[in-house]
Protein backbone atom coordinates (compact mmCIF):
# COMPACT_ATOMS: atom_id res chain seq x y z
CA UNK A 1 0.00 0.00 0.00
CA UNK A 2 1.37 3.40 -0.89
CA UNK A 3 2.33 5.85 1.85
CA UNK A 4 0.36 8.66 0.26
CA UNK A 5 -2.71 8.15 -1.86
CA UNK A 6 -4.52 11.14 -3.28
CA UNK A 7 -7.92 10.59 -4.84
CA UNK A 8 -9.95 13.18 -6.75
CA UNK A 9 -8.42 16.12 -4.93
CA UNK A 10 -10.24 19.28 -5.99
CA UNK A 11 -9.82 22.80 -4.72
CA UNK A 12 -12.22 25.61 -5.36
CA UNK A 13 -11.60 29.23 -4.37
CA UNK A 14 -14.61 31.39 -3.76
CA UNK A 15 -13.67 34.83 -5.03
CA UNK A 16 -16.09 37.74 -4.60
CA UNK A 17 -17.49 37.42 -8.09
CA UNK A 18 -16.84 33.85 -9.04
CA UNK A 19 -16.05 30.27 -8.14
CA UNK A 20 -12.57 29.33 -9.37
CA UNK A 21 -11.47 25.73 -9.60
CA UNK A 22 -7.68 25.70 -9.15
CA UNK A 23 -7.15 21.95 -8.73
CA UNK A 24 -9.38 19.59 -10.68
CA UNK A 25 -9.76 15.97 -9.51
CA UNK A 26 -6.10 15.18 -9.03
CA UNK A 27 -5.16 11.59 -8.21
CA UNK A 28 -1.75 10.12 -7.53
CA UNK A 29 0.10 7.91 -5.09
CA UNK A 30 3.56 7.85 -3.62
CA UNK A 31 5.44 4.96 -1.99
CA UNK A 32 7.77 5.07 0.97
CA UNK A 33 11.31 6.04 -0.05
CA UNK A 34 10.25 7.24 -3.51
CA UNK A 35 10.13 10.63 -5.18
CA UNK A 36 7.21 11.92 -7.19
CA UNK A 37 7.74 15.13 -9.14
CA UNK A 38 4.78 17.33 -9.98
CA UNK A 39 5.80 19.36 -13.03
CA UNK A 40 4.09 22.29 -14.65
CA UNK A 41 4.29 25.97 -15.56
CA UNK A 42 3.14 28.70 -13.20
CA UNK A 43 -0.62 28.68 -13.09
CA UNK A 44 -0.84 24.93 -13.58
CA UNK A 45 -2.06 24.45 -10.01
CA UNK A 46 0.92 22.47 -8.72
CA UNK A 47 1.54 24.62 -5.64
CA UNK A 48 -2.18 24.83 -4.89
CA UNK A 49 -2.35 21.03 -5.04
CA UNK A 50 0.56 20.67 -2.61
CA UNK A 51 -0.95 23.17 -0.19
CA UNK A 52 -4.35 21.49 -0.43
CA UNK A 53 -2.93 18.16 0.79
CA UNK A 54 -2.49 19.67 4.25
CA UNK A 55 -5.18 22.35 4.00
CA UNK A 56 -2.51 25.03 4.00
CA UNK A 57 -4.22 27.42 1.59
CA UNK A 58 -4.41 30.89 3.20
CA UNK A 59 -7.79 31.59 4.82
CA UNK A 60 -8.41 34.77 2.85
CA UNK A 61 -8.57 32.76 -0.37
CA UNK A 62 -11.77 31.15 0.86
CA UNK A 63 -11.08 27.65 -0.34
CA UNK A 64 -13.07 24.46 -0.38
CA UNK A 65 -11.07 21.26 -0.68
CA UNK A 66 -12.72 17.95 -1.58
CA UNK A 67 -11.54 14.41 -2.27
CA UNK A 68 -9.29 12.16 -0.21
CA UNK A 69 -5.69 12.40 0.93
CA UNK A 70 -4.75 9.11 2.56
CA UNK A 71 -1.52 9.12 4.51
CA UNK A 72 -0.96 5.62 5.91
CA UNK A 73 -4.70 5.08 5.38
CA UNK A 74 -5.79 8.10 7.47
CA UNK A 75 -7.76 10.59 5.37
CA UNK A 76 -6.11 13.92 6.17
CA UNK A 77 -8.99 15.92 4.74
CA UNK A 78 -11.38 14.29 7.21
CA UNK A 79 -9.25 15.13 10.27
CA UNK A 80 -10.16 17.80 12.80
CA UNK A 81 -8.03 20.97 12.65
CA UNK A 82 -6.22 19.86 15.85
CA UNK A 83 -5.38 16.42 14.48
CA UNK A 84 -4.32 17.85 11.13
CA UNK A 85 -2.01 20.26 12.94
CA UNK A 86 -0.25 17.27 14.50
CA UNK A 87 0.21 15.70 11.08
CA UNK A 88 1.89 18.84 9.72
CA UNK A 89 5.46 18.80 10.84
CA UNK A 90 5.28 15.46 12.62
CA UNK A 91 4.35 13.21 9.73
CA UNK A 92 4.67 15.59 6.81
CA UNK A 93 7.41 18.21 6.40
CA UNK A 94 7.18 21.15 4.02
CA UNK A 95 9.91 23.23 2.43
CA UNK A 96 9.19 26.30 0.38
CA UNK A 97 10.70 28.00 -2.62
CA UNK A 98 11.72 31.15 -0.81
CA UNK A 99 13.39 30.04 2.43
CA UNK A 100 14.12 33.61 3.50
CA UNK A 101 10.44 34.36 3.73
CA UNK A 102 9.71 31.15 5.59
CA UNK A 103 11.92 32.08 8.55
CA UNK A 104 11.20 34.82 11.04
CA UNK A 105 13.82 37.57 10.61
CA UNK A 106 13.79 38.68 14.27
CA UNK A 107 14.48 35.29 15.88
CA UNK A 108 17.75 33.38 15.76
CA UNK A 109 18.02 30.14 13.79
CA UNK A 110 18.50 28.15 17.00
CA UNK A 111 15.44 29.71 18.55
CA UNK A 112 13.23 28.82 15.60
CA UNK A 113 14.52 25.27 15.37
CA UNK A 114 14.19 24.63 19.11
CA UNK A 115 10.65 25.96 19.08
CA UNK A 116 9.57 23.04 16.91
CA UNK A 117 10.73 20.44 19.43
CA UNK A 118 9.61 22.54 22.39
CA UNK A 119 5.99 22.52 21.27
CA UNK A 120 5.88 19.07 19.75
CA UNK A 121 7.83 16.90 22.18
CA UNK A 122 8.36 16.54 25.92
CA UNK A 123 12.14 16.73 25.69
CA UNK A 124 14.06 18.89 28.14
CA UNK A 125 15.94 21.95 26.91
CA UNK A 126 19.35 20.35 26.94
CA UNK A 127 18.21 17.42 24.79
CA UNK A 128 16.39 19.80 22.47
CA UNK A 129 19.58 21.77 21.87
CA UNK A 130 21.49 18.56 21.20
CA UNK A 131 18.85 17.39 18.71
CA UNK A 132 18.88 20.75 16.92
CA UNK A 133 22.67 20.72 16.60
CA UNK A 134 22.51 17.16 15.30
CA UNK A 135 19.92 18.18 12.70
CA UNK A 136 22.03 21.12 11.51
CA UNK A 137 25.11 18.94 11.22
CA UNK A 138 23.14 16.41 9.25
CA UNK A 139 22.26 18.97 6.59
CA UNK A 140 25.91 19.91 6.26
CA UNK A 141 26.15 23.07 8.31
CA UNK A 142 29.64 23.33 9.73
CA UNK A 143 30.08 24.72 13.26
CA UNK A 144 26.37 24.16 13.92
CA UNK A 145 26.62 25.23 17.54
CA UNK A 146 27.87 28.71 16.64
CA UNK A 147 25.14 29.08 14.03
CA UNK A 148 22.39 28.64 16.62
CA UNK A 149 22.70 32.30 17.46
CA UNK A 150 22.80 33.45 13.79
CA UNK A 151 19.88 35.35 12.32
CA UNK A 152 18.42 34.51 8.90
CA UNK A 153 19.92 37.62 7.24
CA UNK A 154 23.42 36.50 8.23
CA UNK A 155 23.18 33.32 6.16
CA UNK A 156 23.38 32.76 2.40
CA UNK A 157 20.40 31.44 0.44
CA UNK A 158 21.89 27.95 0.31
CA UNK A 159 22.54 27.90 4.07
CA UNK A 160 19.00 29.05 4.81
CA UNK A 161 17.56 26.33 2.61
CA UNK A 162 19.66 23.86 4.61
CA UNK A 163 18.23 25.28 7.84
CA UNK A 164 14.70 24.87 6.42
CA UNK A 165 15.44 21.26 5.52
CA UNK A 166 16.82 20.66 9.04
CA UNK A 167 13.64 22.18 10.48
CA UNK A 168 11.38 20.07 8.29
CA UNK A 169 13.25 16.91 9.29
CA UNK A 170 13.44 17.53 13.06
CA UNK A 171 10.36 15.45 13.74
CA UNK A 172 11.35 12.74 11.24
CA UNK A 173 8.37 13.04 8.87
CA UNK A 174 7.52 10.17 6.58
CA UNK A 175 6.70 12.52 3.75
CA UNK A 176 8.54 15.66 2.71
CA UNK A 177 6.84 18.12 0.36
CA UNK A 178 9.33 20.41 -1.35
CA UNK A 179 7.91 23.26 -3.42
CA UNK A 180 10.58 24.47 -5.89
CA UNK A 181 13.29 23.97 -3.25
CA UNK A 182 16.18 25.08 -5.47
CA UNK A 183 14.63 27.58 -7.89
CA UNK A 184 15.97 30.59 -5.99
CA UNK A 185 19.49 29.14 -5.71
CA UNK A 186 22.69 29.16 -7.76
CA UNK A 187 23.56 26.06 -9.84
CA UNK A 188 26.35 24.93 -7.55
CA UNK A 189 24.13 25.35 -4.49
CA UNK A 190 21.26 23.61 -6.28
CA UNK A 191 23.49 20.62 -6.94
CA UNK A 192 24.49 20.30 -3.30
CA UNK A 193 20.93 20.76 -1.96
CA UNK A 194 19.53 18.10 -4.32
CA UNK A 195 22.31 15.73 -3.30
CA UNK A 196 21.50 16.38 0.36
CA UNK A 197 17.81 15.63 -0.20
CA UNK A 198 18.65 12.35 -1.93
CA UNK A 199 21.00 11.27 0.84
CA UNK A 200 18.51 12.12 3.58
CA UNK A 201 15.82 10.27 1.71
CA UNK A 202 17.96 7.15 1.50
CA UNK A 203 18.87 7.30 5.18
CA UNK A 204 15.38 7.90 6.49
CA UNK A 205 13.33 6.10 3.84
CA UNK A 206 11.31 9.26 3.47
CA UNK A 207 8.96 9.85 0.55
CA UNK A 208 9.52 13.09 -1.35
CA UNK A 209 6.88 15.06 -3.21
CA UNK A 210 8.83 17.48 -5.35
CA UNK A 211 7.12 20.42 -7.05
CA UNK A 212 9.19 21.91 -9.85
CA UNK A 213 9.16 23.37 -13.34
CA UNK A 214 12.72 22.27 -14.05
CA UNK A 215 13.01 19.08 -16.10
CA UNK A 216 16.70 18.81 -15.17
CA UNK A 217 15.74 18.58 -11.49
CA UNK A 218 13.10 15.99 -12.40
CA UNK A 219 15.67 13.94 -14.34
CA UNK A 220 17.97 13.98 -11.38
CA UNK A 221 15.53 13.31 -8.56
CA UNK A 222 12.25 11.68 -9.56
CA UNK A 223 11.09 8.08 -9.79
CA UNK A 224 7.66 9.06 -11.06
CA UNK A 225 6.30 12.21 -12.65
CA UNK A 226 2.90 13.86 -12.75
CA UNK A 227 2.60 16.61 -15.35
CA UNK A 228 0.00 19.26 -14.56
CA UNK A 229 -1.55 21.74 -16.94
CA UNK A 230 -4.21 24.31 -16.10
CA UNK A 231 -5.54 22.67 -12.89
CA UNK A 232 -5.44 19.05 -14.15
CA UNK A 233 -3.04 16.15 -14.09
CA UNK A 234 -2.47 15.38 -17.77
CA UNK A 235 0.21 12.70 -17.76
CA UNK A 236 1.49 10.34 -15.14
CA UNK A 237 4.43 8.07 -15.80
CA UNK A 238 7.61 6.49 -14.57
CA UNK A 239 10.44 8.97 -15.14
CA UNK A 240 12.44 7.03 -17.77
CA UNK A 241 9.32 6.37 -19.82
CA UNK A 242 8.35 10.01 -19.70
CA UNK A 243 11.73 11.23 -20.89
CA UNK A 244 12.00 8.56 -23.59
CA UNK A 245 8.54 9.02 -24.96
CA UNK A 246 6.28 11.77 -23.63
CA UNK A 247 2.71 11.05 -24.74
CA UNK A 248 0.64 14.17 -24.16
CA UNK A 249 1.26 16.90 -26.76
CA UNK A 250 1.78 19.35 -23.89
CA UNK A 251 4.47 17.20 -22.28
CA UNK A 252 6.12 16.88 -25.67
CA UNK A 253 6.03 20.67 -26.15
CA UNK A 254 7.41 21.16 -22.64
CA UNK A 255 10.38 18.94 -23.52
CA UNK A 256 11.01 20.89 -26.72
CA UNK A 257 11.03 24.18 -24.83
CA UNK A 258 13.91 23.01 -22.63
CA UNK A 259 17.38 24.43 -22.97
CA UNK A 260 19.45 21.40 -23.88
CA UNK A 261 22.48 20.93 -26.08
CA UNK A 262 23.47 23.82 -28.29
CA UNK A 263 20.30 24.58 -30.28
CA UNK A 264 17.71 27.21 -29.37
CA UNK A 265 14.66 25.77 -27.60
CA UNK A 266 11.27 25.74 -29.28
CA UNK A 267 8.74 27.82 -27.35
CA UNK A 268 5.14 26.69 -26.83
CA UNK A 269 2.93 29.25 -28.57
CA UNK A 270 0.41 31.11 -26.41
CA UNK A 271 0.11 31.09 -22.63
CA UNK A 272 -1.40 28.92 -19.89
CA UNK A 273 -5.09 29.85 -19.53
CA UNK A 274 -6.16 31.41 -16.25
CA UNK A 275 -8.26 29.10 -14.05
CA UNK A 276 -10.92 31.83 -14.34
CA UNK A 277 -11.33 31.19 -18.05
CA UNK A 278 -10.58 27.57 -18.83
CA UNK A 279 -11.30 26.28 -22.31
CA UNK A 280 -14.03 23.68 -22.67
CA UNK A 281 -12.81 20.12 -23.10
CA UNK A 282 -9.04 19.65 -23.19
CA UNK A 283 -7.44 22.67 -21.54
CA UNK A 284 -4.41 22.50 -23.84
CA UNK A 285 -6.41 22.26 -27.08
CA UNK A 286 -6.16 25.97 -28.04
CA UNK A 287 -2.34 25.70 -28.07
CA UNK A 288 -2.13 22.14 -29.32
CA UNK A 289 -0.67 21.36 -32.77
CA UNK A 290 -2.50 18.00 -32.82
CA UNK A 291 -6.02 19.12 -31.87
CA UNK A 292 -8.98 17.55 -33.63
CA UNK A 293 -12.77 17.41 -33.39
CA UNK A 294 -12.97 15.44 -30.13
CA UNK A 295 -10.83 17.96 -28.21
CA UNK A 296 -13.70 20.23 -27.12
CA UNK A 297 -15.14 17.35 -25.12
CA UNK A 298 -13.99 16.74 -21.60
CA UNK A 299 -11.08 14.27 -21.59
CA UNK A 300 -10.74 11.44 -19.05
CA UNK A 301 -7.40 9.90 -18.07
CA UNK A 302 -6.62 7.03 -20.45
CA UNK A 303 -4.43 4.16 -19.29
CA UNK A 304 -1.69 3.06 -21.66
CA UNK A 305 0.89 0.37 -21.08
CA UNK A 306 3.28 2.48 -19.03
CA UNK A 307 1.40 5.59 -18.15
CA UNK A 308 -1.81 7.53 -17.81
CA UNK A 309 -2.57 10.37 -20.17
CA UNK A 310 -5.42 12.85 -20.55
CA UNK A 311 -5.59 13.13 -24.33
CA UNK A 312 -8.14 11.80 -26.86
CA UNK A 313 -5.32 10.53 -29.08
CA UNK A 314 -4.89 7.66 -26.63
CA UNK A 315 -8.52 6.65 -26.35
Amino acid at each position, binding site marked *: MPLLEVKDLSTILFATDKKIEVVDKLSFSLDKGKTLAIVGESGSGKTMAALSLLKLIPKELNSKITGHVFLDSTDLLALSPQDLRKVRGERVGFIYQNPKRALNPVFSIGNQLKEVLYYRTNLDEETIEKEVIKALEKVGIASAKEHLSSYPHQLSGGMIQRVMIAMALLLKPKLLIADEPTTALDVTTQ*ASILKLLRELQEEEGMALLLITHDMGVVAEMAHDVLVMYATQGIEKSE*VNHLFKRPLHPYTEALFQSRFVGTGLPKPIPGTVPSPRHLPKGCHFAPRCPKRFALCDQEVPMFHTENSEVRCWLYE
Partner: protein
Amino acid sequence: MIEVENLTKYFKVGTQVLQAVRGVDFTVNKGETVAIVGESGSGKSTIANLLLALEDLTAGKIIFEGRPLTDKRTREEKREIQIVFQDPHSSFNPRMKIKEAFFEPLYVQEIYKTFSEAKPKILETLSLIGMGEEALERYPHAFSGGQLQRLAIARALLLNPKLLILDEPLSSLDISLQAQIVQLLDQLKKQLNLTLLFITHDLQIVRTFADRVVVLYLGKVMEMGETKTLFQHPRHPYTEALLSSIPPQNPWEKRDPIPIGDQLPSPFDPPSGCPFRTRCPYVMPVCSNPIPEKKEGSHSWWCILDQLPEVRHWLSN
Protein backbone atom coordinates in the same frame (compact mmCIF):
# COMPACT_ATOMS: atom_id res chain seq x y z
CA MET B 1 32.66 47.77 -29.66
CA ILE B 2 33.19 47.95 -25.92
CA GLU B 3 36.42 47.35 -24.11
CA VAL B 4 36.86 47.39 -20.36
CA GLU B 5 40.24 47.57 -18.72
CA ASN B 6 40.99 46.97 -15.06
CA LEU B 7 37.34 47.59 -14.19
CA THR B 8 37.22 47.99 -10.42
CA LYS B 9 34.49 48.85 -7.94
CA TYR B 10 34.82 48.96 -4.17
CA PHE B 11 31.92 49.89 -1.88
CA LYS B 12 32.44 51.40 1.51
CA VAL B 13 30.25 49.65 4.06
CA GLY B 14 30.71 51.20 7.49
CA THR B 15 34.43 50.97 8.13
CA GLN B 16 34.92 48.04 5.78
CA VAL B 17 35.48 47.93 2.04
CA LEU B 18 33.48 45.50 -0.08
CA GLN B 19 35.51 44.55 -3.15
CA ALA B 20 32.77 43.84 -5.68
CA VAL B 21 34.73 44.02 -8.94
CA ARG B 22 38.51 43.66 -8.88
CA GLY B 23 40.31 44.52 -12.09
CA VAL B 24 38.21 42.96 -14.81
CA ASP B 25 39.22 43.11 -18.50
CA PHE B 26 37.07 41.98 -21.39
CA THR B 27 35.82 43.12 -24.77
CA VAL B 28 32.56 42.75 -26.61
CA ASN B 29 32.75 42.93 -30.39
CA LYS B 30 30.04 44.36 -32.60
CA GLY B 31 27.19 41.94 -33.27
CA GLU B 32 28.38 39.49 -30.64
CA THR B 33 26.55 37.97 -27.67
CA VAL B 34 28.83 37.76 -24.68
CA ALA B 35 27.69 36.09 -21.47
CA ILE B 36 28.99 36.97 -18.04
CA VAL B 37 28.50 33.95 -15.80
CA GLY B 38 28.92 33.60 -12.07
CA GLU B 39 27.22 32.79 -8.78
CA SER B 40 25.42 35.44 -6.74
CA GLY B 41 28.02 37.71 -5.24
CA SER B 42 30.45 37.33 -8.15
CA GLY B 43 30.03 40.99 -9.14
CA LYS B 44 28.21 40.46 -12.43
CA SER B 45 25.40 42.93 -11.80
CA THR B 46 27.88 45.52 -10.53
CA ILE B 47 29.63 45.29 -13.91
CA ALA B 48 26.32 46.08 -15.62
CA ASN B 49 25.81 49.08 -13.34
CA LEU B 50 29.31 50.35 -14.09
CA LEU B 51 28.80 50.07 -17.83
CA LEU B 52 25.61 52.11 -17.48
CA ALA B 53 27.30 54.65 -15.15
CA LEU B 54 24.73 53.81 -12.47
CA GLU B 55 27.76 53.47 -10.20
CA ASP B 56 31.03 55.41 -10.27
CA LEU B 57 34.19 53.55 -11.17
CA THR B 58 36.74 53.03 -8.41
CA ALA B 59 39.39 52.44 -11.06
CA GLY B 60 39.67 51.32 -14.66
CA LYS B 61 38.52 52.37 -18.08
CA ILE B 62 35.49 51.77 -20.27
CA ILE B 63 36.15 52.38 -23.97
CA PHE B 64 33.10 52.45 -26.21
CA GLU B 65 33.72 52.52 -29.97
CA GLY B 66 37.19 53.91 -29.38
CA ARG B 67 36.09 56.71 -27.02
CA PRO B 68 36.60 56.52 -23.25
CA LEU B 69 33.33 56.75 -21.29
CA THR B 70 33.43 58.56 -17.98
CA ASP B 71 30.94 58.48 -15.11
CA LYS B 72 29.44 61.72 -16.44
CA ARG B 73 27.81 60.69 -19.69
CA THR B 74 26.36 62.88 -22.40
CA ARG B 75 22.80 62.25 -23.50
CA GLU B 76 23.99 60.47 -26.65
CA GLU B 77 26.33 58.24 -24.67
CA LYS B 78 23.51 57.27 -22.35
CA ARG B 79 21.36 56.18 -25.29
CA GLU B 80 23.98 53.84 -26.63
CA ILE B 81 23.88 51.36 -23.73
CA GLN B 82 20.51 50.15 -22.41
CA ILE B 83 19.51 47.42 -19.99
CA VAL B 84 16.74 44.89 -19.33
CA PHE B 85 16.46 43.80 -15.70
CA GLN B 86 15.57 40.49 -14.12
CA ASP B 87 12.13 41.28 -12.75
CA PRO B 88 9.86 42.96 -15.28
CA HIS B 89 7.23 43.69 -12.61
CA SER B 90 9.58 45.98 -10.75
CA SER B 91 11.05 47.62 -13.84
CA PHE B 92 7.75 49.29 -14.77
CA ASN B 93 6.08 51.96 -12.68
CA PRO B 94 2.72 50.42 -11.73
CA ARG B 95 0.94 53.78 -12.05
CA MET B 96 2.17 54.52 -15.57
CA LYS B 97 0.36 53.23 -18.61
CA ILE B 98 2.59 51.50 -21.16
CA LYS B 99 2.12 54.58 -23.32
CA GLU B 100 3.65 56.80 -20.64
CA ALA B 101 6.40 54.31 -19.79
CA PHE B 102 7.39 54.24 -23.46
CA PHE B 103 7.13 57.99 -24.05
CA GLU B 104 9.20 58.93 -21.03
CA PRO B 105 12.67 57.96 -22.29
CA LEU B 106 11.96 59.58 -25.67
CA TYR B 107 10.86 62.77 -23.91
CA VAL B 108 13.73 62.87 -21.42
CA GLN B 109 16.18 62.39 -24.24
CA GLU B 110 14.42 65.25 -26.08
CA ILE B 111 13.86 63.14 -29.14
CA TYR B 112 10.15 63.91 -29.22
CA LYS B 113 8.24 66.67 -27.41
CA THR B 114 4.73 65.23 -27.58
CA PHE B 115 3.27 61.76 -27.48
CA SER B 116 1.65 62.10 -30.90
CA GLU B 117 5.04 62.83 -32.47
CA ALA B 118 6.53 59.82 -30.67
CA LYS B 119 3.66 57.45 -31.44
CA PRO B 120 4.92 56.09 -34.79
CA LYS B 121 8.29 55.23 -33.22
CA ILE B 122 6.59 53.60 -30.23
CA LEU B 123 4.29 51.53 -32.44
CA GLU B 124 7.20 50.48 -34.61
CA THR B 125 9.08 49.29 -31.52
CA LEU B 126 6.03 47.46 -30.16
CA SER B 127 5.65 45.65 -33.46
CA LEU B 128 9.12 44.18 -32.91
CA ILE B 129 7.74 42.20 -29.99
CA GLY B 130 4.48 41.36 -31.72
CA MET B 131 2.34 43.88 -29.84
CA GLY B 132 0.21 46.69 -31.17
CA GLU B 133 -1.65 49.85 -30.26
CA GLU B 134 -3.94 48.02 -27.80
CA ALA B 135 -1.03 47.72 -25.34
CA LEU B 136 -0.63 51.48 -25.00
CA GLU B 137 -3.60 52.27 -22.78
CA ARG B 138 -3.00 49.36 -20.42
CA TYR B 139 -1.18 49.34 -17.09
CA PRO B 140 1.71 46.94 -16.29
CA HIS B 141 -0.49 44.79 -14.01
CA ALA B 142 -2.65 43.86 -17.00
CA PHE B 143 0.25 41.91 -18.51
CA SER B 144 1.75 38.54 -17.57
CA GLY B 145 5.41 38.24 -16.60
CA GLY B 146 6.41 37.06 -20.06
CA GLN B 147 4.54 39.89 -21.80
CA LEU B 148 6.04 42.46 -19.45
CA GLN B 149 9.53 41.15 -20.11
CA ARG B 150 8.89 41.59 -23.85
CA LEU B 151 7.75 45.14 -23.14
CA ALA B 152 10.88 45.79 -21.06
CA ILE B 153 12.98 44.64 -24.01
CA ALA B 154 11.02 46.86 -26.40
CA ARG B 155 11.40 49.86 -24.14
CA ALA B 156 15.15 49.31 -23.92
CA LEU B 157 15.24 49.30 -27.74
CA LEU B 158 13.34 52.60 -28.10
CA LEU B 159 16.49 54.67 -28.01
CA ASN B 160 18.25 52.50 -30.62
CA PRO B 161 21.04 51.35 -28.29
CA LYS B 162 24.16 49.80 -29.75
CA LEU B 163 24.76 47.59 -26.73
CA LEU B 164 21.92 45.92 -24.86
CA ILE B 165 22.69 44.51 -21.41
CA LEU B 166 20.40 41.74 -20.17
CA ASP B 167 20.70 41.15 -16.44
CA GLU B 168 19.21 37.69 -15.69
CA PRO B 169 16.33 38.41 -18.09
CA LEU B 170 14.94 34.88 -17.85
CA SER B 171 15.30 33.86 -14.24
CA SER B 172 11.90 35.12 -13.12
CA LEU B 173 10.15 33.36 -16.01
CA ASP B 174 8.73 29.89 -16.54
CA ILE B 175 10.55 27.50 -18.86
CA SER B 176 8.25 27.87 -21.85
CA LEU B 177 8.46 31.67 -21.51
CA GLN B 178 12.23 31.51 -21.25
CA ALA B 179 12.27 29.80 -24.62
CA GLN B 180 9.98 32.52 -26.05
CA ILE B 181 12.17 35.37 -24.78
CA VAL B 182 15.40 33.77 -26.00
CA GLN B 183 13.87 33.28 -29.39
CA LEU B 184 12.73 36.91 -29.45
CA LEU B 185 16.20 38.11 -28.46
CA ASP B 186 17.79 35.97 -31.12
CA GLN B 187 15.44 37.36 -33.77
CA LEU B 188 15.91 40.99 -32.62
CA LYS B 189 19.64 40.58 -32.56
CA LYS B 190 19.66 39.54 -36.21
CA GLN B 191 17.04 42.09 -37.27
CA LEU B 192 18.60 45.10 -35.54
CA ASN B 193 22.23 44.00 -35.59
CA LEU B 194 22.41 44.31 -31.81
CA THR B 195 25.31 43.56 -29.55
CA LEU B 196 24.26 41.75 -26.38
CA LEU B 197 25.86 41.40 -22.98
CA PHE B 198 24.02 38.62 -21.22
CA ILE B 199 24.41 38.35 -17.44
CA THR B 200 23.28 35.06 -15.98
CA HIS B 201 24.00 32.19 -13.64
CA ASP B 202 22.37 29.65 -15.95
CA LEU B 203 25.02 27.86 -17.97
CA GLN B 204 22.62 25.82 -20.02
CA ILE B 205 21.05 28.99 -21.44
CA VAL B 206 24.51 30.41 -22.13
CA ARG B 207 25.39 27.34 -24.13
CA THR B 208 22.48 27.77 -26.52
CA PHE B 209 22.74 31.51 -26.88
CA ALA B 210 26.16 33.12 -26.31
CA ASP B 211 29.12 33.42 -28.68
CA ARG B 212 31.62 33.98 -25.91
CA VAL B 213 31.60 33.49 -22.14
CA VAL B 214 33.32 35.34 -19.31
CA VAL B 215 33.38 33.32 -16.06
CA LEU B 216 33.46 35.59 -13.04
CA TYR B 217 34.24 34.65 -9.45
CA LEU B 218 34.42 37.03 -6.51
CA GLY B 219 34.97 40.05 -8.74
CA LYS B 220 37.67 38.50 -10.94
CA VAL B 221 37.65 36.76 -14.31
CA MET B 222 38.59 33.08 -13.98
CA GLU B 223 38.30 32.07 -17.59
CA MET B 224 36.98 33.42 -20.87
CA GLY B 225 36.68 32.16 -24.38
CA GLU B 226 34.35 30.97 -27.10
CA THR B 227 31.32 29.17 -25.76
CA LYS B 228 32.05 25.94 -27.60
CA THR B 229 35.68 25.75 -26.49
CA LEU B 230 34.84 26.61 -22.92
CA PHE B 231 32.11 23.97 -22.65
CA GLN B 232 34.11 21.24 -24.34
CA HIS B 233 37.45 22.01 -22.83
CA PRO B 234 37.25 24.09 -19.64
CA ARG B 235 40.65 25.02 -18.21
CA HIS B 236 39.71 26.50 -14.86
CA PRO B 237 38.55 24.25 -11.99
CA TYR B 238 35.76 26.73 -11.22
CA THR B 239 34.37 26.50 -14.75
CA GLU B 240 34.65 22.73 -14.50
CA ALA B 241 32.71 22.76 -11.22
CA LEU B 242 30.02 25.00 -12.70
CA LEU B 243 29.63 22.75 -15.74
CA SER B 244 29.44 19.66 -13.58
CA SER B 245 26.52 21.10 -11.64
CA ILE B 246 24.25 21.51 -14.67
CA PRO B 247 21.39 19.05 -14.07
CA PRO B 248 21.35 16.01 -16.37
CA GLN B 249 19.22 16.11 -19.53
CA ASN B 250 17.76 12.68 -18.94
CA PRO B 251 17.17 10.51 -15.89
CA TRP B 252 19.42 7.73 -17.17
CA GLU B 253 22.41 10.08 -17.41
CA LYS B 254 23.91 10.37 -13.98
CA ARG B 255 25.95 13.44 -13.27
CA ASP B 256 28.60 13.79 -10.65
CA PRO B 257 28.78 17.39 -9.47
CA ILE B 258 32.22 18.36 -8.22
CA PRO B 259 31.63 19.20 -4.57
CA ILE B 260 32.80 22.76 -3.95
CA GLY B 261 30.38 23.62 -1.15
CA ASP B 262 28.16 26.66 -1.35
CA GLN B 263 30.02 29.23 0.70
CA LEU B 264 31.62 32.11 -1.20
CA PRO B 265 34.49 33.70 0.75
CA SER B 266 33.75 37.17 2.08
CA PRO B 267 34.06 39.94 -0.53
CA PHE B 268 35.33 42.16 2.30
CA ASP B 269 38.43 40.03 2.58
CA PRO B 270 38.87 37.99 -0.60
CA PRO B 271 41.58 35.30 -0.61
CA SER B 272 44.98 36.32 -2.02
CA GLY B 273 46.11 34.85 -5.33
CA CYS B 274 43.39 32.74 -6.90
CA PRO B 275 40.09 33.65 -5.19
CA PHE B 276 38.71 30.16 -5.89
CA ARG B 277 41.48 28.38 -3.97
CA THR B 278 39.39 28.07 -0.78
CA ARG B 279 36.88 25.85 -2.61
CA CYS B 280 39.12 24.33 -5.28
CA PRO B 281 39.54 20.54 -5.27
CA TYR B 282 43.05 20.86 -6.78
CA VAL B 283 44.39 23.60 -4.48
CA MET B 284 48.18 23.83 -3.97
CA PRO B 285 50.28 26.13 -1.74
CA VAL B 286 51.36 28.16 -4.79
CA CYS B 287 47.71 29.22 -5.43
CA SER B 288 47.96 32.01 -2.86
CA ASN B 289 50.51 33.79 -5.09
CA PRO B 290 49.37 36.04 -7.96
CA ILE B 291 48.15 33.93 -10.87
CA PRO B 292 49.39 34.79 -14.38
CA GLU B 293 47.10 34.72 -17.39
CA LYS B 294 47.35 31.68 -19.66
CA LYS B 295 46.28 31.92 -23.27
CA GLU B 296 45.51 29.66 -26.17
CA GLY B 297 44.12 31.65 -29.11
CA SER B 298 41.16 33.63 -27.81
CA HIS B 299 40.80 31.35 -24.77
CA SER B 300 42.25 32.77 -21.52
CA TRP B 301 42.32 31.36 -18.02
CA TRP B 302 43.86 32.22 -14.69
CA CYS B 303 44.96 28.99 -13.05
CA ILE B 304 48.36 27.64 -12.23
CA LEU B 305 47.42 24.39 -13.98
CA ASP B 306 47.78 24.06 -17.74
CA GLN B 307 45.37 21.17 -17.84
CA LEU B 308 42.72 20.00 -15.42
CA PRO B 309 43.93 16.82 -13.66
CA GLU B 310 41.34 14.55 -15.20
CA VAL B 311 39.19 15.01 -18.23
CA ARG B 312 35.60 14.57 -17.22
CA HIS B 313 32.92 13.84 -19.76
CA TRP B 314 29.71 15.21 -18.44
CA LEU B 315 28.36 16.53 -21.69
CA SER B 316 26.72 14.02 -23.94
CA ASN B 317 26.61 16.23 -27.03
